[in-house]
């Protein structure tokens, strides 16, 4: 062993390690908060070609997206060009963050709650200036009140909304016709739903072949939350930067119990294993389930169902039905390489494109006229209009805090999992979530 050689080697090793760390150290380190709105002048900032990132939603919706990009390119030819890139959802947020880390953020990307964390790190562009200069600020044309949750600092909006989603009760008309039951409507209570579900369930011996009801998106925190709202409570004190969780409120616990009972005590809805089996055999769209509360984004996939189907407002829980809503739209990194082009694309989709969006029937346009237009309604089931009627009084179904991703994945996720497998009592689940979520807050 030659000590001289050895020390030289470790020195080199150290040098390499040091370089690695030095490179790590020169991270973007950009933590300034963006209080200055993006330029609204006509000068073009950044590239004229913008690469748009969204997660993939299946062939139909993706095709429509691509078509919209083509339409944009036509209208803005010579000025801006857009390209669209789809990523699978489970890698989407990861890649976005990693690109930020590499100081090569995406030019623009489709919003979901995780982007709030990017706002907190000062990475998003302030879009108040560009948005208020368009018809998006006109309350006669757009439901501007509903945009408020996106004004993260209270005044400036950090995303450009282009569509809106909600939750409804979907039901299979063919099943109802067979059983001779009249369709659900805005007057239906959860009691009535359970009655109908019992009649609609088909068994062969001991095995259930068709379920009258599936808990659907009540099995996700933002769906269950609506029951708490209806009872007059909530999971946390406010959606934007909550200061406290209120899971242990007896009304919340009652709501948890309600959903758990549907699956276990009353067994009107399939339990997790049975749900898996049913969904693999086709789920609601395959006629395995008669009623299911779910997000309105499912409408596109149901369009191809064999049976006739429709939608109704969420049933009354303790006398009330509160609708959730979610905004869909775009956020643009401050350091986007194609700032102006990105803004142009997002604004175009939120304004000129709305009519086409209505005709495509894949998203629900944010623009009032488009949403209520004949083009929209003609492709939608009859219950759509009634279901959307309560939109102006809907509540945002999101949680905006830096840790929301972690809280939802590691606290709500496993706790609900256990709750729905009957391994955890509603009170225990509530306590567990309360404790862990508060710790992460």
């Amino acid at each position: 062993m030659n000590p001289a050689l050895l020390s030289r080697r470790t020195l080199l090793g150290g040098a390499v390690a040091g370089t690695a760390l030095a490179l790590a150290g020169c991270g973007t380190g950009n933590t300034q908060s963006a209080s200055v709105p993006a330029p609204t002048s006509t000068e073009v900032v950044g590239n004229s070609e913008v690469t748009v990132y969204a997660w993939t939603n299946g062939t139909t919706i993706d095709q429509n997206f691509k078509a919209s990009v083509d339409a944009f390119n036509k209208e803005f030819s010579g000025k801006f060009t857009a390209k669209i890139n789809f990523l699978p959802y489970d890698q989407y947020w990861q890649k976005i963050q990693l690109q930020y880390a590499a100081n090569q953020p995406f030019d623009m990307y489709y919003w979901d709650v995780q982007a709030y964390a990017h706002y907190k790190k000062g990475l998003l562009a302030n879009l108040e200036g560009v948005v208020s200069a368009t018809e998006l600020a006109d309350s006669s044309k757009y439901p501007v009140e509903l945009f408020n949750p996106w004004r993260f600092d209270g005044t400036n909006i950090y995303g450009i909304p282009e569509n809106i989603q909600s939750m409804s009760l979907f039901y299979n008309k063919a099943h109802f016709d067979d059983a001779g039951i009249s369709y659900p409507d805005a007057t239906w209570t959860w009691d009535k739903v359970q009655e109908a579900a019992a009649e609609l369930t088909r068994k062969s011996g001991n095995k259930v072949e068709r379920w009258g009801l599936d808990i659907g998106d009540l099995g996700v925190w933002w769906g269950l939350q609506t029951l708490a709202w209806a009872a007059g409570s909530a999971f946390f004190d406010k959606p934007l930067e909550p200061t406290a969780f209120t899971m242990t409120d007896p009304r919340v616990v009652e709501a948890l119990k309600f959903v758990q009972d549907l699956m276990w005590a009353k067994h009107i809805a399939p339990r997790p294993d049975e749900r898996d089996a049913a969904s693999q055999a086709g789920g609601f769209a395959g006629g395995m389930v008669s009623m299911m509360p779910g997000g309105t984004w499912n409408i596109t996939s149901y369009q191809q169902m064999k049976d006739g189907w429709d939608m109704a407002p969420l049933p009354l829980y303790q006398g009330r039905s509160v609708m959730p809503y979610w905004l869909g739209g775009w956020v643009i990194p401050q350091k986007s390489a194609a700032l102006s082009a990105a803004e142009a694309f997002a604004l175009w989709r939120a304004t000129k494109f709305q009519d086409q969006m209505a005709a495509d029937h894949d998203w629900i346009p944010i623009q009032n006229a488009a949403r209520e237009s004949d083009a929209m309604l003609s492709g939608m089931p009859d219950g759509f209009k009634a279901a959307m009627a309560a939109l102006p009084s809907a509540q945002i179904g999101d949680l905006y805090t830096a840790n929301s991703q972690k809280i939802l994945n590691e606290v709500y996720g496993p706790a609900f999992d256990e709750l729905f497998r009957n391994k955890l009592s509603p009170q225990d689940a509530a306590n567990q979530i309360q404790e862990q979520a508060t710790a992460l807050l």
Partner: protein
Amino acid sequence: MAAEDRSGGVRLSRREIAVRVIVLSLGAVVVLMPVFWTVLTSLKTAEQTLAIPPVWFFDPQWSNYAEVLRIVPFQNYALNTATVVAGVVLGTLLSCSFSAYGFARLRAPGRNTIFGVLMATMMLPSTVTLVPTYIVFNKIGWLNTFLPLIVPAFFGSAFFIFMFRQFYLSLPKELEEAARIDGAGYFRIWWSIFLPLSMPVIATVTVFTFVGAYNDFFGPLIYLTDESKWTISVALSSFGGSPKIGPQLHMLTAATMIAAAPSIIVFLLAQRYYVNGISVSGINK
């Protein structure tokens, strides 16, 4: 290197042979059943895949494969994968055969220590080096390119250097001596004499590296962002089939078979080299 086709081993009576063959056959059926089942399922229609009891005889729907290739930009993924695999194979062959010559035939102070350290790195779990390596590649802007996947291959790989070294050590010294007398430099000796003679090792290393690089999932997963750059393994992991109503088992299995085919084919064609390489690694430890 062991001559693997020598059916060495115990001599048995005919009865014993028959028994062994039967037992081995049963075992092979069990072991290969998963693959067989996947192939079967890939040729069924959607309804048939769900049938209980399972359908064993049916019309093979070869169109499933065509459908998968239609939905998915397979040529793109294949091209990406080919680029990465070719780069890795080339880099590995060059660097390993090159370095092994130094370890085998040339002397320098500390050479054996270095070799020892190199061998020791085989025991280093990749999880330890993962994070800093990723950070560096991220910060120097190699994200979403093939570079992080290909470049490291040009810096040698302990196992294959070992293989080449073993082989070089077995070559007679007279070869070199003759060349040196003729005035050839070390590089010439390596390039013109050792390398051409090491065809068996080159074949083995190529086969191993090909399958390894082709099957690599983690690297492409963390370094390739855009779908246009994906390799086949990443594409398979996120394959969802077409969003028609109902399950897509027949499509998924067809896609799986398409993805697994190259490794299997390479293996079947080059079994000899595979067996060779593994035997060498085991015996000589």
